[in-house]
């Protein structure tokens, strides 16, 4: 025992390690800083998992466009525990983004960014950007079809930058196409630049936490006055604070432990994320989708009005980041309690709901045609019974002409256009003919693409689509033949 003590003393005398670490471990934190304050630690824990599993994966992963996909399959199927390492890395990445978002939300709701912690917030915003960049570059590492076309989306957005679009795109891709140099560029970012930046920013974030202390739980009336705050805070910590170790750290440890076990279970049950289809751009039967952290952006870009889309795509992210950075400068004193800051709480709630709604939209993608709907989703039996040969042929045309890709019948099919189960109660025969031939309301005009017999048949079928207890909106005698002139001369 005394030998151990002597050894420690020997090291301490030469390094001063304990003198450095002790204040970090035993600095006083607010007594009331209970379970609200565990999310930052959990984020850091997931980051540590990312570093460790990332280094492990780098020992087998081949960062080359020609081999990356095969090497991932090799890790999944051949390397002992390889699949679990990939599962841990993938799910921990998602968990880290989620935990970071919760941490940020808590800090925002409690206004912990006010004096003197403005820079804590700002380093946090840069950490957010770094982690999102890690998530995006990580998706590229998978080098499957989603990665390839995800890069294509990134390239197309860069291409829209005025004047320098082409140059920015070339910088991003490392050349004129998505290829070998693209993967290596993103690899360098993913394993060197961004983790380095994240480690540096985490260090800075921690230094600021030690320097400024952890904020107390907000109390209505306990306003932040910059001129006196620091002195009063330090006095309160001195008299009423508790040492970080173990009073606060024990909660961090419990929460992180639960998170870690949860991550393990998630990874073991769900398995590795991807890789999806092989990255051959001539295999076009693919439905490219981004990873979850970017699903809300994917949703947003399909809902933007085309006219202002470019401007919004290029400017909105920059404005968003600037606003985040500016928050502690707009309000760095005064009340911190959420009950005294209803507008800020509302802003947070609206933002969370908007991101959740866009994520849902992106996941379900109602705007995307169901590409094989026409050939894979049968006409429901209830719409084929008691139909005339012409109407039945119309049902065939409805499938044949890919109507089903955008229109559902009995809940199955695309949701880009309206479900047509009861279309005959909404549109008259003439209106159906006009809608099919001229399109409109985001539907292509089928006038040149269907001949008159096809149009007549499909409209005859559509005219039967109404509940049996509800009359259709057909005007008696209005079922005139489709004009055969121009349309027949296909």
């Amino acid at each position: 025992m005394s030998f151990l003590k002597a050894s420690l003393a020997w090291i301490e005398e030469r390094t001063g390690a304990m003198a450095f670490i002790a204040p970090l471990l035993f600095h006083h934190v607010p007594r009331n800083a209970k379970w609200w304050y565990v999310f930052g630690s959990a984020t850091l824990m997931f980051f540590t998992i990312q570093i460790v599993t990332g280094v492990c994966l780098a020992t087998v992963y081949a960062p080359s466009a020609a081999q990356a996909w095969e090497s991932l399959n090799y890790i999944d199927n051949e390397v002992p525990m390889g699949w679990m390492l990939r599962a841990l890395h993938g799910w921990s990445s998602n968990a880290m983004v989620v935990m970071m978002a919760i941490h940020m939300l808590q800090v925002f709701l409690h206004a912990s960014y006010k004096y003197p912690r403005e820079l804590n917030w700002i380093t946090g915003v840069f950490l957010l950007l770094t982690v999102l960049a890690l998530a995006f570059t990580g998706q590229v590492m998978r080098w499957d079809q989603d990665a390839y076309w995800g890069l294509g989306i990134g390239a197309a957005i860069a291409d829209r930058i005025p004047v320098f679009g082409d140059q920015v795109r070339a910088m991003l891709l490392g050349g004129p196409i998505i290829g070998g140099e693209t993967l290596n560029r993103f690899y360098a970012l993913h394993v060197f630049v961004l983790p380095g930046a994240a480690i540096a920013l985490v260090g800075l974030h921690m230094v600021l936490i030690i320097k400024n202390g952890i904020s107390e739980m907000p109390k209505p009336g306990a306003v932040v006055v910059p001129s006196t705050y620091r002195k009063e805070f330090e006095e309160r910590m001195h008299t009423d604070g508790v040492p970080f170790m173990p009073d606060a750290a024990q909660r961090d440890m419990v929460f992180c432990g639960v998170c870690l076990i949860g991550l393990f279970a998630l990874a073991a049950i769900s398995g590795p994320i991807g890789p999806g289809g092989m990255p051959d751009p001539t295999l076009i039967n693919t439905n490219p989708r981004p990873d979850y952290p970017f699903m809300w952006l994917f949703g947003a870009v399909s809902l933007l009005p085309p006219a202002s889309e470019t401007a919004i795509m290029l400017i909105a992210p920059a404005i968003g980041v600037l606003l985040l950075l500016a928050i502690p400068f707009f309000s760095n004193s005064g009340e911190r309690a959420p009950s005294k800051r209803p507008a800020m709480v509302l802003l947070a709630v609206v933002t969370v709901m908007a991101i959740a709604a866009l994520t849902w939209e992106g996941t379900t993608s109602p705007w995307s045609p169901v590409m094989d709907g026409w050939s894979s989703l049968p006409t429901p039996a209830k719409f084929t019974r008691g139909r005339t040969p012409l109407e039945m042929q119309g049902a065939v045309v409805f499938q044949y002409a890919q109507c089903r890709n955008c229109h559902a019948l009995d809940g199955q099919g695309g949701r880009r256009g309206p479900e047509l189960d009861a279309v005959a109660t909404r549109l008259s025969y003439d209106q159906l003919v006009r809608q099919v031939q001229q399109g409109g309301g985001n539907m292509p005009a089928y006038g040149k693409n269907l001949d008159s017999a096809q149009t007549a048949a499909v409209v005859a079928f559509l005219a039967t689509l109404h509940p049996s207890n509800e009359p259709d909106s057909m005007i008696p005698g209005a079922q005139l033949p489709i004009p055969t002139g121009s349309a027949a001369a296909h």
Partner: protein
Amino acid sequence: MNSRLLLASLITWLAGCDRPGVPHGAQPVAHDSLAWTQSAFNTNCRGCHSQGAEGAALPLMNANYWAVATDAVVIEAIAHGQGRSMPAYLDDEGGPFTPAQIVSLVQGMRSLWGAKGSATGGEGGAISPRVIAGDAGAGAAVFSQACAGCHGPQGSAGSVIDPMYLRLISDQGLWSATIYGRSDLGMPSWSQTMPNRPTGLTAQEVADVVSFISSHRGIAQKASDGP
């Protein structure tokens, strides 16, 4: 000791293969396997050719169909399509399948849904407008006796001599409709009892009635049938 046992079992569990998370190595599905047939059918055919009343065109998940259809007829229909209601699936014509895949698909469908022992399909499948010439005049009489009750201009099942309908269906399509019927929708096949024809139609009668129906198309079949 207990904890060591726990660790050992955990590692065994992790290294094992029958858990949900473990990826099963990519196993390419050979195009002559029934799994491939089922998935190719589900993606490419099922939208129109399903089972029972589901699907607007002839149900293929149906032993009755395979009892009659020959492989050659089905292969040709898949490869080259049917007028303006069924696309060509042959790669040379812009479709997704190689000739070998189409053959596998047809053989696979027959073993999935055909009755045991119907290796090649029945007599009716082989008859087609190319084999037996029909006579529209004789067909008119057959039609008025056997078909018009349901399919005449005032028939309850809807007219089959509507020119718009006829412009969308080829003669081969009319043959198929007459021969296979749609038992799921109440239409008998050619060999089943129909009005005035207790034992169904003969091959020649099918040819005649198709000629008769076809004569109502009004414009040349080629013009509307496309390539």
